[in-house]
């Protein structure tokens, strides 16, 4: 249990997830109110990650349901284990005929089979899928419904029962209520607008690209080896890249990838050639790379000019850089 919003922040940070107060507030409310959270935002800002760390921080089991086109009840909730049912009927042939023995008419025989059919439609033959698992679990769990926007609208409607009452209805077994209220998190990339009914039942959390300070903090947490100044340059550059009109805007995961690649290359400075060489780590489209390259060379020159004007401290830095390069070669 999180006791307060500040506790959420510190507990998540222990798990290596840096978040701001806004995220923490919603997580806290979700726990207190027992409401599902719909997390939206651009790709790669840590929506799924949030669910994972909350599960670890609360020491709950994480049950994940990955949504995709055509996902249906059988895959999400439960399925009758057809082969097993068939196998049992085959094996129990003798018993079946024994029950049927002495039946006077077809109707009576059918009646006898019908009396026994609950054997074959019992929990023994149910394969629980993630939703069912989350509801029937004895321990409190965290249910992550990932990329819910990829699912069909019908599936969304079907989710409503689970989200509002934490119960599911299986025609043959009746309604199953959750033993422990799970924390439910849904993530969406906004590929499709979710229905109002679903949204109404959820708390809404919009995770956007982080602010510069927050991103530096994240970088520090995830890639601790990186030089402070380099991290700062990197993040500020990243922010100006996000301003550009790109097909796929790089997100936090790309920042981390970039930082790691720069580390691997032993780069100590973000100069133009270094940026050009490593740009394909963060941008995934040819057109984007070309566009960014143009803008970035302008930006870097501007920055260099600023640095030169800033005074002796800044002048020292470039003087250092060639030396290190010399060691490398």
């Amino acid at each position, binding site marked *: 249990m999180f006791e307060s*919003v500040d506790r959420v922040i510190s507990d998540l940070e222990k798990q290596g997830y840096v978040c701001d107060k806004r995220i923490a*507030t919603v997580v806290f*409310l979700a726990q207190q109110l027992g409401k599902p959270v719909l997390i*939206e935002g651009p790709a790669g800002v840590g929506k799924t990650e949030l669910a994972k760390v909350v599960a670890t921080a609360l020491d709950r089991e994480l049950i994940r349901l990955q949504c995709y086109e*055509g996902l249906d009840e059988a895959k999400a909730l439960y399925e009758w284990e*057809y082969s097993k049912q068939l196998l049992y009927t085959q094996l129990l042939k003798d018993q079946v005929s024994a029950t049927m023995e002495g039946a006077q008419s077809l109707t009576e025989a059918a009646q006898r089979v019908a009396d026994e059919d609950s054997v074959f439609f019992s929990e023994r033959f149910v394969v629980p899928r993630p939703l069912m698992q989350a509801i029937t679990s004895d321990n409190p769990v965290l249910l992550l419904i990932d990329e819910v926007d990829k699912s*069909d609208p019908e599936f969304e409607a079907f989710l409503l029962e689970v989200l509002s009452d934490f119960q599911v209805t299986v025609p043959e077994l009746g309604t199953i209520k959750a033993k422990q209220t799970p924390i439910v998190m849904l993530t969406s990339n906004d590929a499709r*607008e979710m229905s*109002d009914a679903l949204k109404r039942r959820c708390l*809404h959390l919009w995770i956007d690209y982080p602010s510069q300070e927050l991103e530096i903090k994240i970088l520090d947490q995830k890639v601790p080896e990186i030089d402070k100044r380099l991290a700062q340059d990197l993040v500020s550059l990243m922010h100006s890249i996000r301003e550009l009109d790109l097909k796929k805007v790089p997100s936090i995961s790309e920042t981390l990838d970039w930082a790691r690649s720069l580390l691997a290359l032993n780069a100590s400075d973000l100069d133009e050639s270094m940026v050009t060489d490593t740009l394909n780590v963060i941008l995934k489209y040819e057109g984007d790379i070309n566009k960014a390259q143009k803008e970035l060379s302008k930006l870097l020159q501007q920055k260099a000019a600023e640095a030169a004007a800033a005074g002796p401290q800044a002048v020292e830095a470039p003087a250092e850089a060639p030396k290190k390069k010399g060691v490398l070669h």
Partner: protein
Amino acid sequence: MQEKVVEFTNLLRKSGIRVSVAEGINAFEALDELSIDDRELFKDALRSTMVKRGDEIPAFDQLFDLYWSGFYDSLRDAFGEANAQMAAMDIDIDELMKALAEAIEQMDGDVDLSELAQALLTQDLSALENMIRDAADQAGTGNIENMLQVGFFSRRTTEGMGMEGAGQELEQLIQQLEEGGMSPEDAQALRDMLGAMQEGLRKVVRNFTERELQTQNHDYMEKFRREMLTEKSFYHLTEEEIARMREVVHRLAQRIKNILSIRRKRQKRGKLDIHSTLRRNMAMGGVPFNVIYKHRRKDRPKLVILCDVSSSVANVSRFMLQFMYSLQEAFNRIRCFVFVSDLGEVTPLFKDADVNSAIENALDGGDVINVYTRSNFGLAFHIFWRDYLAAIDKKTTVLILGDARNNYNDDKAWCLREIHNKAKNVVWLNPESPSAWGFGDSVMNRYLPYTDIAEECRNLRQLAKVVDSIVL
């Protein structure tokens, strides 16, 4: 407080953010869990419970700031200023306040101070805030309509708070204190300070009134803007609107893609295939362990788009082209053509260039046609019939965008008939209203028999409607 939250909810609704009653209740539940002293927490709690759409967040932020913010802060700032003035004059405020409190205690009962005067003396900001809000309610500040009324309503609010009376009471109090042995310097300092505070309060009231005006206007403006964009004709759009429109069009195309993919998926789930099931389960002695389903043939829609890019419909074509471009990103079986009197294919152009240059290029004819001629639909259809009829099969939907103003040329409606015979659907989107079809040089009525759907399409709302009818 509750009332304020409900009022804020109404404000959100007025500006087009849908907040259900259940969501309003959720907001209260959330506030119960949190301390509302923390502004950020308060804001986050309201947002996460009431605003469920990413694109509504900016509007929420703006409204929140207008409605909640600054008020308490500006009050504090105003008082801080008064205090700072005192400090600049080398007067210890705490000392002064202490003396004042003692003096009042000594006199106990002799002075009967109004609520406002007391709040001023103790600098009780939240009490003052409540008083201002109440007085503003009484004065009807919520009905403010324009800038000229700001003075009127702020005056009424301050009057409602009893500012005059409080000023006199305070003056009396100071006089009594003086008589009671306070040094004249101290008394003067006190007077200055209380005066500054009252002045600050007046300013705050005025700010409050101005903000109220802004909130009222915000509702109106925001709603207006939103309605405008979907209703406004493509013919009269400003630069900024074109930019905003682009996003909307893109989303529309995205939606079509989603709908189509879902429909395809649904068709894939077929019936039980008894033949294959039996065959597959021979090894199990004919007991059907593995069940095979028939897969229905996937219906992959093909799209052929013919877009008029003549200058008479230039603005409309811009959107149609953008729509085409977005569609092409979503489908791979799509061919795009532009025409004025010649007709040329721009599919490869759309594939390679980015959206803006592709559109500009296509409007210039895209190196395939000459745009500086007069529209000739007949000739364009004839060329299509002659050169590209093979692009059409019985799964193809042909989408034609144009005003059918043929400049009295031969309409060659038989070409469209041929196209119609081969295609699954012919959809015509015309930026002119149906009442104008067939008048003047419009030959729309000649083409009408060979279209399955012909719709007026002059703004985004109509475009969305047509798109729905095509894909669903």
